[in-house]
């Protein structure tokens, strides 16, 4: 309840800051329209925006789930095998060092302009934070625990499964919290590169038509999706970790 009130207060503060920005920064509406104009545009185009939002949400969720699975497995692989580590780690950093934008034509060439190229984009953008946060935690297992497990006759795989992975779950949770925020960006970038639907498409289209209020209405919806996702992942990870550690 208090959290919700806080959230509400934050939202109101955000809106006020936005309005103040416009008033003080003397911003014309074609650069940044005010909250009321955007609310009007949102209301007038609610069906249109909702349709595009559903598409983007599906891309985000699929990318998030696949990225979390892939990132988690990669981190485990990296932690499990020094060979994999020396071979794959530069790849991992590389996968992030190459701006997704540069990869976009490749992805669209392979995956076409449909659903999967956006999913791939969202996946690509969250793969690194998930993998790197989880991996960092996986290699930080206290040596004493590992020693004990070895004395008990555990094979490396068992140490990983029963000890290092559970001990590293808070790290995975940090990664997922970041991922929840980045996945929407990935999907939208994917839509910017080429799409016929989705919030990213709608934003570019509105921008090209100088309908900045519509663009910001779509943006607001995107921001709301991102915030919900972030708090959802936060709550789920939090309750799982709490159940694990008390």
């Amino acid at each position: 309840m208090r959290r919700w009130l806080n959230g509400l207060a934050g939202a109101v503060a955000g809106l006020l800051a936005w309005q103040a920005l416009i008033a003080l920064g003397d911003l014309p509406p074609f650069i940044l329209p005010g909250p009321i104009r955007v609310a009007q545009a949102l209301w007038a185009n609610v069906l249109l925006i909702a349709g595009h939002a559903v598409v983007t949400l599906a891309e985000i969720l699929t990318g998030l789930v696949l990225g979390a699975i892939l990132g988690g497995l990669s981190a485990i692989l990296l932690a499990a095998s020094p060979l994999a580590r020396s071979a794959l780690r530069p790849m991992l950093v590389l996968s992030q060092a190459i701006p997704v934008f540069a990869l976009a034509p490749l992805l669209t060439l392979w995956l076409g302009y449909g659903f999967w190229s956006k999913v791939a984009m969202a996946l690509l953008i969250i793969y690194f934070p998930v993998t790197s946060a989880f991996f960092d935690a996986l290699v930080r297992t206290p040596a004493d625990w590992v020693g004990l497990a070895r004395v008990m006759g555990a094979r490396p795989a068992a140490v990983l499964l029963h000890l290092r992975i559970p001990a590293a779950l808070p790290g995975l949770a940090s990664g997922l919290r970041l991922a929840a925020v980045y996945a929407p960006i990935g999907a939208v970038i994917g839509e910017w590169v080429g799409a016929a639907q989705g919030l990213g498409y709608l934003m570019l289209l509105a921008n090209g038509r100088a309908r900045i209020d519509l663009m910001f209405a779509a943006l607001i919806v995107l921001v709301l999706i991102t915030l919900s996702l972030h708090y959802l992942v936060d709550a789920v990870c939090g309750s799982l970790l709490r159940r694990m550690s008390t």
Partner: protein
Amino acid sequence: MTAWSRRAFARTRDEEPGSCFPGQPAPSLLLSGRVKIGSATIVGPVALEVRGGCWTCLLGPSGVGKSTLLALLAGVGDHVSLEGDQRAGDDAPLAGRVALMAQSDLLLPWLNVLDNVTLGARLRGERADMMRARQVLDRVGLADLAKARPATLSGGQRQRVALARTLMEDRPVVLLDEPFSALDAGTRARMQDLAAKVLAGRTVLQVTHDPAEAARLGQEVLLLTRSGLSRVEPPATSPPRAFDAPDTLVFQGRLLRRLLEV
């Protein structure tokens, strides 16, 4: 086998410390040399012999290297280097034959008490013997706390969970690092009795600071000081001895004096 070789073999056996349970398969432990961490010598040249099947108590001032020796024997001293030699009396590798109860309890915070106690089986991919685990928990007085998380336990309760976990490991060699240090006298006596019974016939090396404990449990008592390792002759009676038996008390007093002299 020629007569000569048989004699030679017999002699090798002779040179080894005798077992407390002749005919028992628990191996003796031998470690000699200098123990270093990095370039610092932690334990000067020693020759440690732990007799097979015996309960050996190791005492010594704080920081002299007792835990380090245990880590070496258990094979977890990755940061420790031994300039010398280490082997089991039967010359077979020790891996898989040792159980270790370290000085800190090393409970996994996300597992409840029961799951911590059966950790070994799970780590080896075996089916955990839940019935025995509950029995052992009952014997260490924690039957009611089987579902509790380590974070909600008192210091002594945590130590008893670690003890129960070690007792669940069915290993011929058992290394215990101050296993009863956080327990009150009553619980401590009960845990000593329990451990002595469960571990009878195994090669046990127990680090302790309590002369009364060494007097109750030790079939061998070793004293490690900066100047080296020495044996203190324990009472001839077989442990666990009554804590107020005259020879226990006399030995305890003698040991205490030795400890205070260090």
